[in-house]
């Protein structure tokens, strides 16, 4: 797959139809992959990599890159294409300055899950037919592939590319995934249990803003949290209220626009399951205002910028759910 991508990228570079290629660059180890912009065939040959660890959603870089002169080629997995559609709908990217090659999604690996098993001193990770052979300083370790899959891939919602100019490999289709199970589990808890669960999770937050800076739906020029007189501390974990407020308001600002790409939970240094907040909004919107998948198209109105005369009343929240 990687060779096919490099070959195609080089062709497009040499025949001048694209100026830059956004992809992934090899790191020091097997798993520390960095998104990067390639401008020449040599760079592609030297550093370009596409394997089980290239899980970063690079669509947010297009906000900057698509405004530069000359077309940019980008490789997008199915879940990334939803983010690009959402960015296109909101006119944050110049879509015709972008050439999209759809690549197969395929579950990606999470190095934290491998390390959580006590495996350390990792030198290389080989995947031969779904068992991982991990070579470490302390000998060889093996681990089933399925146990090291990223959370966002484990509850993958679709293998369908919703926007592409070209495809490598076939297109998949929308899957019905179990992504709302954990949300339902939480909803059935009592209020005290839910409060304790979220207080324990959100109190770990160190306010590093990685979730906001990686989120393709969070592309405001100036974020409300960076505005000092918004009254929210954007870098201090000074009170439990601040943590609650930051995460409620951030989830609220992407409600109806979040494509559930799972990047926020992937990058959180404190392993907080932030995707559950966004999925709660998605589940509510689906149940109250009709099935809606952000990024599925570039024309529909986002649920929170739309209304119908017979929407339910806000008191519906008070009637349902256990106390």
């Amino acid at each position, binding site marked *: 797959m990687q060779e096919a991508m490099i070959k195609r990228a080089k062709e497009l570079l040499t025949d001048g139809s694209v100026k830059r290629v956004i992809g992934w660059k090899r790191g020091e180890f097997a798993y520390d992959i960095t998104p990067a912009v390639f401008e020449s065939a040599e760079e592609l040959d030297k550093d370009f990599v596409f394997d089980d660890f290239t899980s970063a959603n690079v669509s947010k870089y297009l906000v900057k890159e698509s405004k530069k002169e000359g077309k940019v080629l980008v490789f997008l997995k199915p879940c990334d294409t939803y983010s690009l559609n959402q960015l296109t709908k909101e006119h944050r990217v110049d879509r015709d300055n972008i050439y999209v090659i759809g690549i197969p999604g395929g579950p990606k690996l999470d190095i934290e899950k491998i390390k959580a098993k006590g495996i350390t001193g990792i030198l290389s990770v080989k995947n031969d037919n779904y068992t991982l052979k991990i070579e470490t300083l302390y000998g060889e370790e093996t681990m089933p592939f399925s146990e090291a899959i990223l959370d966002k891939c484990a509850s993958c919602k679709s293998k369908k590319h919703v926007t592409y100019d070209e495809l490598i490999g076939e297109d998949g289709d929308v899957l019905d995934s179990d992504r709302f199970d954990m949300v339902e589990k939480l909803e059935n808890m009592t*209020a005290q249990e839910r409060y304790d669960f979220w207080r324990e999770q959100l109190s770990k937050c160190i306010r590093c803003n990685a979730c906001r800076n990686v989120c393709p739906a969070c592309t405001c020029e100036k974020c409300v949290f960076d505005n000092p007189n918004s*009254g929210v501390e954007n870098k201090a974990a000074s009170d439990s*209220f601040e943590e*609650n407020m930051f995460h409620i*308001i951030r989830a609220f600002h992407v409600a109806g626009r979040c494509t559930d790409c799972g990047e926020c939970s992937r990058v959180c240094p404190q392993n907080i399951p932030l995707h559950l907040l966004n999925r709660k909004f998605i589940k509510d919107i689906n149940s109250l205002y009709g099935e809606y998948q952000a990024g599925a198209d570039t024309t529909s109105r986002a649920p929170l*910028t739309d209304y119908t005369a017979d929407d339910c009343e806000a008191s519906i929240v*008070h009637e349902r759910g256990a106390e």
Partner: protein
Amino acid sequence: MQVNENKEFQPLIVAFCCNWCSYAGADLSGTNRLNYPTNVKIIRVPCSCRVNPMFILRAFQRGADGVILCGCHPGDCHYTSGNYFTRRRMTLLFSMLDFLGIERDRTRVEWVSAAEGAKFAATMNEFTEAVRKLGPNRRLEDLRCRKQ
């Protein structure tokens, strides 16, 4: 949250009232000599959809025990569709607060037209009682703002 002489818990209620209907409704309940608890602090907003979720959370941060958002009945909003957006926005916000385990009955949306002075007073009385039963807001307050 003040506790007056008869030691009964007096909740602090913040009411966002839309200028065209609910605020006039509150005014009407005043001119009709209908009384509603003094714990209710009214904040006038041009339309119910002017209320940003941050305002509601900030009210809780600063010691409010209940927040009620009053607006025009759907259909006769002065800006035609303001309250429709409010309805969706607040439904999702209240559902998220509930998801985080914060008591559901501390927040409410009520449609009160300019002619419904009685309904305004009744709603405020009933909401204050509901919040009084819940007790002080401990789950969404900022400890630094707690009155010593």
